[in-house]
């Protein structure tokens, strides 16, 4: 499957935040939305999810306009993994994951055997079966993020949209979540995620859209877009992009040059 975004214009009320955005994503690929705070990354993915209206341009799923889908049908195509937050009620983790099945039930439907089976499989797929009987509000932020991912998987969508999946996570959990994202893409899901780390683009071998303050954007592969000049233009800081060999790995990463420490290290 393929989602095509052409000349997308979106925002709140009458004010467009994002203008002329174009990108595409196919099954099995990862697209990172990168850019400084306030350029409209969140606005953009909310528009892709259909949470705010499209003001201009087009978003199509395999050639069909996204707006033509009902909420329920669209949920079978795109799943949403929000940032972990605390819901008002202390639901059981397994119940939270089963909620992902809602779109496959009738309006008055309740989850059945098949839904429980799939939810259990999703927990297992992310290796968090041990959380099943815990209370969602009492587990750690990293665990909550994984549970929300499991919930979106239970929805069985072709694409996932993830809002800064690694924010608020410790070093280890960031790596774990990222690894799972890459695995899911290998298994055929298309993933759109917003991130603040250019390194994520290298790590996931993802496509990237770098959005600038002036509203412009650059789309392409990591090598094409994540360059020292582009990052300086987007974030207004000096960045070094480094290549290294480590054991059998070819590593590519970027490192902001912080004045002071830079001279000290020379």
């Amino acid at each position: 499957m393929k989602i095509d975004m052409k000349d997308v214009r979106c925002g709140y009320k009458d004010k467009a935040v994002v203008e002329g955005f174009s990108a595409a994503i196919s099954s099995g690929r990862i697209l990172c939305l990168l850019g400084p705070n306030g350029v409209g990354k969140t606005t953009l993915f909310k528009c892709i999810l259909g949470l705010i209206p499209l003001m201009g341009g087009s978003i199509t799923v395999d050639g069909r306009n996204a707006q033509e889908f009902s909420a329920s049908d669209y949920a079978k195509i795109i799943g949403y993994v929000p940032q972990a937050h605390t819901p008002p009620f202390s639901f059981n983790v397994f119940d939270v994951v089963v909620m992902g099945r809602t779109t496959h039930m009738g309006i008055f439907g309740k989850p059945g055997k098949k839904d429980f089976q799939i939810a259990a499989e999703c927990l297992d797929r992310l290796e968090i079966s041990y959380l099943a009987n815990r209370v969602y509000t009492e587990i750690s932020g990293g665990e909550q993020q994984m549970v929300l991912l499991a919930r979106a998987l239970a929805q069985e969508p072709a694409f996932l949209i993830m809002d800064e999946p690694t924010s608020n996570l410790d070093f280890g959990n960031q790596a774990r979540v990222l690894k799972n994202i890459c695995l899911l893409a290998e298994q055929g899901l298309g993933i759109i995620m917003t991130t603040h780390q250019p390194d994520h683009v290298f790590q996931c071998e993802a496509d990237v859209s770098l959005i600038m303050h002036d509203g412009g954007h650059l789309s392409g592969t990591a090598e094409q877009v994540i360059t020292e000049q582009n990052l300086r233009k987007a974030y207004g800081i000096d960045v070094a992009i480094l290549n290294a060999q480590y054991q059998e790995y070819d590593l590519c990463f970027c490192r902001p040059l912080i004045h002071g420490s830079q001279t000290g290290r020379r």
Partner: protein
Amino acid sequence: MERDDVIAENTIIQGHENSRRKERRILIALFIILIATMLVSLTIGRYGVPLDQIFDIFMQRITGREISEANTEANLVLFIIRIPRILLTIMVGAALSASGAAFQGVFKNPMVSPDILGVSSAAGAGAALAILIGVSSIGVNIVAFVFGIGAVLLVMLLAKAVGRGSNTLLVMVLSGVVVSSIFRAMTSLAKYIADADNKLPEITFWLMGSFAKSGSNRNVIIMLIALILGATPLLALRWRMNVLSFGEEEAKAMGININRMRIVIVACSTLLTASSVCLCGSIEWVGLIMPHITRLIVGPNYRILLPAAMLGGGIFMLVVDNFCRAIIPGELPVGIITSLIGAPLFIYMLFKGRRDWA
């Protein structure tokens, strides 16, 4: 490795089935308690009717035999006064409790209830005005419902305008306070202009919340219709209420038509509250504390929470009403007792549940 996975999945599903079995047992237990409370309630009152006599009368009725002379009076007390009142009490308790639970889910806010959102006072004001003008009792119902819906809309609008999407938990409660106070003023106005000899006592006593005058067969039927109309959609949508409590965006991304769902839930909950208020005045706190107590026992999943809260609400209301009937000869308005029980209980739950609400 693969075998381990299957074992892990089976363990999860097994554990889940066990907890569902437990849920079913809780519902059955609540139902038995409700029946037992009903039987006890039949014996309570100024005219004492012991259980064996009640049984006797029921047998005579069921078998179609003539009611024996010794039982005539008791028969009248039971079927004209006590049974309608008990049925009405249970239905009002269930309705208020269901309404509170549904409002809490749809506004993803455990601190709201029909009273806090202003629905009760608005329905009360509407009904008071309708009584003042002198419309039919169906008309009183309709006016109360319209006022109730108006109050919810007003609170939603205020909360949205003031809160701008953030910290709506408190803003919504405060908006409710404001809206309630507007409608209470309207009620006071209605009382002020009301004829002090006949209409004023009628309005005042009814506003205190009491089943004393409302237990008639006709009212039982009105409440039954309202309960069926209001609670059936809520029960049918109860799984989706879980999803709704995660917030608008997530619920929509999980495939729920938010607007349609909200309209149905708010309308049904308001109908339940408004009809209760019309029949027996505003009985406060039940809609707030019963869902909470139930949540402490069965957890927040609406699949079990909603039916359990309805049964629990019925039991609670009936017990309180019995107490009011038994405590003093003239009988106490039930609203006074629910407030006396509800307020401290709520403070206790504020402490106990603080972690869940943070």
